[in-house]
């Protein structure tokens, strides 16, 4: 465990060394924004719309009381989506999608000697392969979170109106009621930390693969599992620091 952490720190030191040529790194970062960010919009939209709908319906089901105003369902759905779902749940989903992609891509490059080829050209392979991914994720994941927030709340509205769980007016009043803008800041700060965890941890496991296809698969699994655990740990720490 400690040796893994040490190797991770050494890798990060290499990743954040001065790039050989900024123009090439910029081009790679743009490519990674498309690969890791734009290509994740679809899954984020699909999951957010359904989870937003389910949160609304479950809240309605659990608040069957004439003492509780219906607009509170909208408020609950909004706060659940802003505080936890759009940052942490989407972070966990991206750990699966993006994390496995990064670990298997870099792991494949390791076992096919492509990383050695980069080193032989005099290129800092750790920085060239990992830094653009980290920057791309830190830059773009907040947009994914915002998309998830908007779509999730919209999904809740659709569910409310279609099922008749509550009226459109109640839901819209609820999502505007007692709105705390800091919740969005809190979610976006968490997203930035999660983006770093997902990309760097998955890249670490991919970069240190030894063996063949089986080991690449294992590295991919480890990348996803450890990223997810660290995301949840980070969630607890940041929540305590920012909301307590």
């Amino acid at each position, binding site marked *: 465990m400690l040796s893994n952490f040490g190797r991770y720190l050494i890798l990060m030191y290499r990743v954040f060394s001065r790039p*050989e*040529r900024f123009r*090439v790194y910029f081009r790679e970062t743009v490519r990674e924004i498309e690969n890791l960010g734009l290509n994740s919009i679809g899954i984020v939209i699909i999951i957010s719309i359904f989870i937003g709908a389910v949160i609304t319906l479950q809240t309605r089901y659990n608040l069957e009381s004439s003492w509780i105003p219906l607009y509170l369902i909208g408020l609950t759905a909004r706060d659940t989506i802003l505080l936890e779902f759009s940052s942490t749940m989407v972070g966990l989903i991206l750990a699966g999608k993006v994390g496995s992609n990064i670990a298997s891509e870099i792991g494949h490059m390791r076992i*096919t*000697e*492509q990383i*050695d*080829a980069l*080193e*032989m*050209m*005099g*290129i*800092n392979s750790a920085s060239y392969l990992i830094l653009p991914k980290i920057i791309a994720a830190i830059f773009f994941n907040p947009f994914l979170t915002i998309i998830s927030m908007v779509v999730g709340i919209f999904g809740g509205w659709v569910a409310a109106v279609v099922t008749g769980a509550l009226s459109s007016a109640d839901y819209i009043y609820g999502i505007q009621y007692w709105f705390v803008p800091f919740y969005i800041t809190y979610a976006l700060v968490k997203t930035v930390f999660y983006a770093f965890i997902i990309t760097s941890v998955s890249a670490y496991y991919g970069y240190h693969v030894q063996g063949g296809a089986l080991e690449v698969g294992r590295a991919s699994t480890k990348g996803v599992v450890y990223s997810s655990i660290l995301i949840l740990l980070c969630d607890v720490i940041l929540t305590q620091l920012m909301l307590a």
Partner: protein
Amino acid sequence: MIVVEDISKSFGSETVLKNISVTFEKGKTNLIIGRSGSGKTVLMKSVVGLHEVDSGAIYFDGRDFVKMGTRQRQELRKEMGMLFQGSALFDSLTVEENVIFPLQMFSDMTEDEKIERVNFCLERVHLENANKLYPGELSGGMKKRVAIARAIVQNPKYLFCDEPNSGLDPKTAIVIDNLISEITHEFDITTIVNTHDMNSVMEIGEKVVFIYEGIKCWEGTKDEILTSDNNYLNDFVFASNLAKRIRDIQAGSQQ
């Protein structure tokens, strides 16, 4: 010229290289031969720094590679080209993008000059019309030739080839061997080829180093191989029936 002095390398408790000293000469194709698992690849990867040696020194034209820091090594590696066993081409890039890659990172040439250089290198390896193809669309021999083009695109002083003929048919293997030999002489570079293919040895081996269980067991020229009395070398060289028959015929003609 590359001088290797007394290097050793272990992985855990297993010692793979034991006090190897050898000089790889400039303008020649220097071959490292030996059985699978004898330590050839570890020796080559240790020389280029992909493995850290436990002890010993490696000099590239007098520059001590082992004592260099990361930045200095990166600078020196710009003078090296390497052909990997599996070619190690970047899957997501076309042939042209693969070959131009080192230039994009380090060269101050204009785009037109870079393209011109890439075309020259691809023509040099007889791959004129493959610029826009992806590695997945190439045969094994073509991949090797692209890898050679990429290795020479920065005008290296040192060329390393790890099992250049693995997975190739004998005819294509000869083409690759001759290409390596021609490039070595044309650009007057120090070339090290790692192989267990005796055809390659007899085709291009100007200096041959035989590694047996991590020890340098013999060195000489390709002609001296056939007359050597080193038992380990003879076991390796004359392992095939074809080689035995050639030896017998040669012995017969001398009598």
